């Protein structure tokens, strides 16, 4: 929520102002504002006499040439960075060089328009085409074409201002191009704030690649921020503090030094791939309960969020949130994690956690109306949640996961509801990801045994080892009389896990583990050996797990996993797992 200080006093007392935008590149920084005022170029439609045509064409070619040179210079600056970075700049170059658009601009000049008028008309044609698209990524391209067009116009008019940006500045701009970001990086800027939104934009992508903290979609930023005032930018939460109070600066410094300490401790590990010594890649994702935890997960270098327990929202509010509240919460998470994927699990709620809407107090909630059973029993609550998921999916990095599935008709029934919600949104012209992936938790023995069938119906599996163990062994681990019988490494549980992974592989869908077993030191070798694609764990153990995976050899792990599966004696198993 933006709250603004009293406008009349703000210039004198320099009161702290907090603005909220979209977090688009994680990290924190404190620096002096460097405001780049947008160059307003008004291009009137100018008719030119026939004898000026060749002169206008020369001006166009000159402008194109200069701008291509500028991008080429930026390309040279990033030649040692990753290929993705140069690919972005090359795309800009390809657009400028597009022979079809150049020839149509020239044709238009020949019918008697100035170079600028011709550029505006031809680019606008393309821009409008993208602007009307419902696809968020294409819409984003319309803004990029727009920025490219403005830059080209300024270049033709030779109105490019060369900014001499002091080190450690926080850039405040209306919009920026990828080339700008490269130049900012060279000027060692501390952070970037833009008014334009679009976390899918190439500029946002570059800021993330360079690790420059960035907040976008901050309305009126360049009119509210004075040049030279101090700014704290929080790229995790999407907050900016203008003229921060001393308290705020203190808090920032404490957080920043903690972050730096973390980074030092983790050293190089954070930037290394999660792969075995023989090059088998494993995805490492985080289990989280709230938007705030995304920050920690990102800090530890996760590949995404493997599980969001949305029922926490219910338990915190002590009631079911409405669609709007849910949408805001989910969108916050997907924005913060972008471009990494986020798996949102539908409410896994039973009478042990929450009573509203349940028919009666249940004697045995674990075997009662919980997870998907509750959701299908309360279609109103489920549909609200599905609509909120869909609305938050516009970045195309959201996946839906259904909890406690035990039979096929639960999947079918849920999909029918989802389709219904999709048509409702379509009718209202509300955008969402048409192809939003839907996966299931495999945590009942029934689902584990039928995994081969289910794999053809869903987009991914995630194994919940805690419930799978409790249901397979018929042991309530919170019951002190039987708690020692609770054994995630029981041969029956491991055999079920193997069956789930094989079933997923046979239908080529990804399979992850989000239960405690995923982070268990003794299990990593086995899980990697049976071919798990992804492990989802609490953020704090991400790096420890990465270190362990990097010490493994896949071929060896595969052999050990085979021995483990064929082993029926618990004591032999313990030896194989190196537990004794």
């Amino acid at each position, binding site marked *: 929520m933006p709250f603004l200080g009293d406008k009349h006093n703000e210039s004198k007392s320099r009161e702290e102002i907090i603005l909220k935008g979209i977090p688009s590149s994680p990290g924190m920084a404190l620096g002096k504002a460097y405001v780049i005022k947008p160059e307003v170029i008004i291009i009137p439609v100018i008719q030119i006499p026939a004898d000026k045509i060749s002169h206008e064409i020369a001006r166009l070619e000159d402008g194109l040439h200069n701008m291509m040179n500028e991008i080429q210079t930026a390309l040279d600056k990033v030649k040692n960075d990753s290929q993705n970075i140069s690919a972005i700049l090359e795309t800009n170059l390809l657009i400028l060089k597009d*022979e*079809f658009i150049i020839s149509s601009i020239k044709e238009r000049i020949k019918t008697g328009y100035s170079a600028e008028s011709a550029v505006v008309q031809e680019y606008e044609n*393309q821009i409008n085409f993208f602007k009307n698209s419902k*696809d968020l990524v294409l819409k984003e391209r319309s803004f990029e074409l727009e920025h490219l067009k403005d830059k080209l116009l300024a270049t033709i008019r030779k109105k490019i201002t060369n900014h001499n940006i002091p080190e450690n500045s926080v850039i405040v701009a209306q919009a920026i191009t990828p080339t700008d970001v490269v130049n900012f990086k060279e000027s060692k800027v501390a952070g970037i704030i833009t008014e334009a939104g679009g976390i899918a934009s190439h500029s946002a992508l570059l800021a993330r690649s360079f690790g420059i903290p960035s907040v976008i979609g901050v309305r009126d930023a360049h009119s509210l921020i004075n040049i030279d005032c101090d700014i704290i930018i929080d790229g995790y939460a999407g907050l900016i503090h203008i003229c921060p109070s001393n308290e705020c600066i203190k808090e920032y410094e404490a957080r920043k030094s903690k972050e730096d300490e973390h980074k030092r401790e983790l050293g190089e590990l954070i930037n290394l791939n999660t792969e075995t010594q023989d090059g088998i890649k494993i995805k490492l994702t985080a289990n989280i309960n709230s938007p705030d935890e995304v920050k920690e997960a990102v800090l530890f270098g996760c590949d995404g969020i493997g599980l969001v327990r949305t029922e926490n929202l219910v338990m915190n509010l002590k009631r079911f949130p409405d669609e709007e509240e849910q949408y805001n919460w989910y969108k916050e998470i997907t924005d913060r994690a972008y471009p990494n994927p986020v798996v949102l699990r539908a409410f896994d709620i039973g009478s042990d956690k929450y009573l509203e809407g349940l028919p009666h107090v249940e004697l045995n909630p674990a075997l009662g109306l919980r997870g998907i059973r509750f959701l299908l029993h309360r279609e109103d609550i489920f549909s609200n949640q599905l609509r909120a998921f869909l609305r938050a999916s516009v970045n195309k990095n959201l996946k839906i996961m259904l909890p406690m599935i035990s039979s096929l008709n639960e999947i079918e029934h849920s999909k029918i509801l989802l389709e219904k919600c999709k048509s409702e949104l379509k009718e209202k012209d509300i955008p969402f990801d048409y192809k939003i992936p839907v996966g299931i938790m495999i945590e009942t023995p029934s689902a584990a045994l039928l995994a081969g069938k289910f794999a053809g119906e869903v987009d991914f599996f995630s194994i919940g080892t805690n419930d799978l163990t409790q249901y397979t062994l018929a042991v309530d681990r919170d019951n002190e009389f039987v708690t020692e019988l609770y054994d995630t490494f029981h041969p029956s549980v491991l055999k079920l896990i193997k069956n789930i992974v094989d079933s997923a592989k046979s239908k080529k869908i990804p399979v992850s583990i989000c239960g405690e077993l995923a982070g268990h030191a003794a299990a990593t070798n086995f899980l990697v050996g049976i071919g798990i694609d992804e492990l989802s764990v609490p953020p704090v153990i991400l790096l420890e797990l990465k270190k362990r995976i990097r010490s493994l050899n896949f071929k060896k792990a595969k052999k050990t996993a085979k021995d483990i599966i064929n082993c029926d004696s618990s004591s032999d198993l313990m030896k194989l797992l190196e537990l004794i």
Partner: protein
Amino acid sequence: MIRDGFSINAKSIIGVMTLAAEQGCELVLRIDGIDESNASDELNELFESGFGEQ
């Protein structure tokens, strides 16, 4: 390059963008010119290899 009856010249990157071709959609490629067989082989390879992203 043709999608749902809408065709563009693939030499134009803006043209390719306007196809709005998301992953998994169906495209028809028409290759015409002196190096057409070479070009078609190479394009086939590019598509088969998942554009080097897999």
